[in-house]
């Protein structure tokens, strides 16, 4: 074991960096554009003849004028004011599966053979890219048991929307006009409900049983009827209690002719251990930017790879990638008769696909199982430590003693006893170089926080993080004001006046609005 040391003297980079507009100096240039050659200039004539006056821009955009090094310095400084996985022990961002994104994969995606290929090139010229998409599809088929995957959705929520669209189209094709309800659970991701609403479904949220935390089976049975179009659900939900009734639930849905869609955002602890198909699901998605190691990029590029059973293949968004045995080449197959059409242009975020593929190729079957195993061990280890050592913390639905790969905890006791909320702890923990997150809404679990110690962290890392929580909660009981006024060593201090975000008279979603509302100025014209 290495040394576990809580960084009590930590201080994050604080550059006090101005807004980019404040760095503008007239006539500075950041970069030049390739000049127009003389022959072209002479042949084409001047702009006035090429763009009619009515639509020609008269006033140039008020963008800042900044020399190259200053732009670079500005953004490097901003980057230093961010704690990504590369920098911190990022287990406090539960539900997000913050894991190591191997650097070799960044080398691969920066190849010109990736960055400089166009999706509409002749297929013969992009065989390498198509081969990788095809092979990742087959890998995901093995892991899930589904028959085919498509990579078009640009994130988990868009994958959920794709699944809702497939359920919708399926019933339309079958003539099931009466099927207009989707069952989900209150502890599934908010997008499970929201995307189904977009497709016009009435959404029924099954609440958790107060004792077990599992979906209330009586409420579930009661909600099922001939109107049930399907179920879109997480398992485990963000509480990470694996649902032992899941097969029963999928059977009940199938009995009324519904479709079962699996939100597999929480798949990290299930790789090689549970197959979606064996639970009775008809379709599901994996987040390649979470479970399959592609970095989160401040909130994307993401990718939700949607897989389906044979019967639903023809409903997938087009195109899919196939292999022509006779011609020995990969090709785009647009021939899916019941297709929902498209949810996003082209075929998916190729760099994300490539990273996921490279990640699986390093781990193989045994390695994927090791990912699941270690993420489960890490999680249950952290849970034990938090319950034993962190005063004021508890787990949701304590009757279920063990969890898959994350836990939703609660600081209700801390709030009741010390008057310190989870939001206060979240600010204070940044003073030790960590990050902590609450939960999605609604907060079924009061004062929630969610920790997901993926396979990427060592025992020492986990011990250090728990030490941080322990120190803060001790402090909360002894000196609550300290926690409430945090942070002190983060990039900025506490934002107290929330009217900046809530009051339309005050909110400033852009710099120009800020100048107008708060400084009575305009951006340089």
């Amino acid at each position, binding site marked *: 074991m290495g040394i576990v040391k809580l960084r009590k003297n930590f201080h994050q980079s604080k550059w006090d960096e101005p807004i980019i507009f404040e760095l503008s100096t007239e006539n500075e240039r950041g970069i030049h554009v390739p000049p127009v050659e003389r022959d072209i200039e002479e042949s084409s004539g001047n702009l006035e003849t090429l763009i009619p006056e009515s639509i020609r821009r008269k006033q140039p955009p008020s963008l800042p004028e900044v020399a190259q090094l200053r732009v670079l310095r500005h953004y490097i400084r901003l980057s230093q004011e961010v704690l990504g996985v590369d920098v911190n022990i990022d287990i406090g961002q539960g539900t997000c599966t913050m894991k190591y994104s191997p650097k070799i994969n960044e080398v691969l995606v920066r190849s010109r053979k990736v960055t*400089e290929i166009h999706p509409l090139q002749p297929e013969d010229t992009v065989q390498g890219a198509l081969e990788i998409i095809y092979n990742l599809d087959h890998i995901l088929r093995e892991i899930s048991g589904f028959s085919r995957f498509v990579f078009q959705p640009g994130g988990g929520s868009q994958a959920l929307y794709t699944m809702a669209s497939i359920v919708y189209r399926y019933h339309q094709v079958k003539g099931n006009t009466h099927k207009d309800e989707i069952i989900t659970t209150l502890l599934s991701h908010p997008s499970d409900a929201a995307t189904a609403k977009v497709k016009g479904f009435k959404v029924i949220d099954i609440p958790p049983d107060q004792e077990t935390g599992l979906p209330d089976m009586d409420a579930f049975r009661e909600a099922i009827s001939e109107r049930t179009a399907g179920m879109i659900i997480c398992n485990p939900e963000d509480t990470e209690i694996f649902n032992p009734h899941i097969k029963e639930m999928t059977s009940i849905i199938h009995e009324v002719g519904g479709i079962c869609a699996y939100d597999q955002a929480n798949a990290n602890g299930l790789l090689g251990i549970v197959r979606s198909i064996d639970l009775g699901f008809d379709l599901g998605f994996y987040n390649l930017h979470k479970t399959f190691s592609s970095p989160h990029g401040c909130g994307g590029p993401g990718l939700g790879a949607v897989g389906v059973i044979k019967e639903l293949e023809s409903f997938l968004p087009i195109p899919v990638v196939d292999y022509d045995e006779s011609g020995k080449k990969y090709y785009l197959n647009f021939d899916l008769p019941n297709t929902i059409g498209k949810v996003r242009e082209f075929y998916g975020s190729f760099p994300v696909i490539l990273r996921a593929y490279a990640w699986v190729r*390093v781990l193989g079957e045994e390695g994927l199982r090791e990912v699941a195993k270690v993420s489960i061990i890490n999680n249950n280890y952290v849970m034990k430590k938090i319950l034993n050592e962190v005063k004021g913390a508890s787990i949701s639905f304590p009757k279920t003693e063990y969890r898959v790969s994350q836990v939703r905890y609660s600081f209700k006791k801390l709030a009741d006893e010390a008057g310190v909320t989870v939001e206060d702890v979240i600010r204070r923990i940044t003073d030790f170089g960590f990050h902590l997150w609450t939960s999605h809404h609604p907060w079924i679990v009061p004062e929630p926080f969610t920790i997901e110690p993926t396979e990427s962290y060592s025992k020492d890392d986990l011990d250090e993080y728990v030490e941080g929580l322990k120190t803060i909660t001790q402090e909360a009981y002894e000196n609550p004001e300290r926690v409430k006024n945090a942070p002190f060593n983060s990039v900025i201090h506490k934002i107290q006046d929330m009217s900046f975000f809530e009051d339309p008279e005050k909110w400033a979603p852009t710099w120009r609005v800020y100048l107008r509302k708060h400084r009575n100025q305009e951006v340089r014209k």
Partner: protein
Amino acid sequence: MEERKRKVYPYIPNSYEDVQEEMLKEIGVKSFKELLDKIIPRELQYQGSLNLPKSFHSEYELKRFVEGVLSKNKTCEEYICFLGGGIWPHYVPAICDEIASRGEFLTAYAGEPYEDHGRWQALFEYESLMAELLDMDVVSIPIYSWGHAAGTSLRMSSRITGRKEVLVVDTISPERRKIVDNYMEPYIKIRWIKHDAESSQMDVDELKRELSDKVAAVYFENPSYLGLIETQGKEISEMAHEKGALVIVGIDPSSLGILEPPSHYGADIVCGELQPLGNHINFGGSLAGFVATRDDEKFVKEIPYRIFGIAHTTMPEEYGFGDVAFERTSFMVREAPSEAKEFVGTASALWGVVAGVYLSLMGPKGMQELGEGIVKRVNYAIKKLSQISGLKVPRFHSFHFKEFVVDFNSFTLSVEEINRRLLDYGIIGGIDLSKHFPELGNSALYCVTEIHTKEDIDKLYNALSEILGVN
């Protein structure tokens, strides 16, 4: 001593047995199997094996293998590429790559305004820079793509006006058309407005006939998928507003150094694609859409995506950031009472950071020179190719930005065959339009940007002349 055969994984620190045993002991179980059985019923655990390819032991083997597969790709640098159609080859400044690959931005996610301050500021600045380019006050955090943003803009218009019908010009990209089709279903009916056969601009007579007090919005693109500049924006807006409908314009931001922003000719909502602003083409993998509107509560509250805003902290002269009107989003409201305000989730934030870097580098002059350089090259290309007898170029008689239709109908060779032959000249030809615009017959959509030189265009001219057997 028995030799340990278990592999230790560099990506998984706790993949050696001693530590696992110690941790399992702390947990209070004897083995992982025992723990697993307590979590997942045995009958639901998969007992079979996965038929996965053999893993690579070393990073070197992986690199060598993957680069071998990728080497089968031919790039738009090895060939002269004239493809656009929703994702366009532009020059990506080195600093854009430098910032996009910074580990902190790359591996951060949804952190708080404190420890991830830089992320909030970079994305706030992206919004603010786009706001200047668009001359509009509110810009969303990036979403999946232009297509999705167009879908949202149309749904917003329906929620704002309470109407259920939208009018969309039929020259929109075939990819976006499919996205929007699916996204309107089942709430909103789309009526497609024809384009003028000569100019390819919106047929305003048809628009006039179709406009009614049932119409929530009129949507058109500028420039259109076929590369034409819509010059009737003001007229369209007036017609729409007269009927109480909103005007939504989809744009390619690389045009806005020289074209009026749609807010100047009446647009209420603007959407578009950020890829041209410093993001590589990546086989279609760096798409990022945005929605912009005015600072009017009625409009802002209908944007389903995140919007970052600036605030003051408890320290004088210190800025902080946060979510503006966060309760609008599906993160906060599980289900809106009547109709969901769509959804939001992980999408394309990093490409927004890059777009901010790009606009900071380019400044007002750079954007103007970019637009001017593109338009001049396109017009040179049109003139040059029009010298090939039998070739009808431009197919439409109006003003072009960076794409134009080349009509090969007087030749027997199909666009597909022509494109196949162009490869022998080191050229990737334009998009075959025969499938999605059958009325244009044997035609192709060519794209020319600032990366193309006179020599590139002349090579295309020479190659086409030879392939078509003319001149």
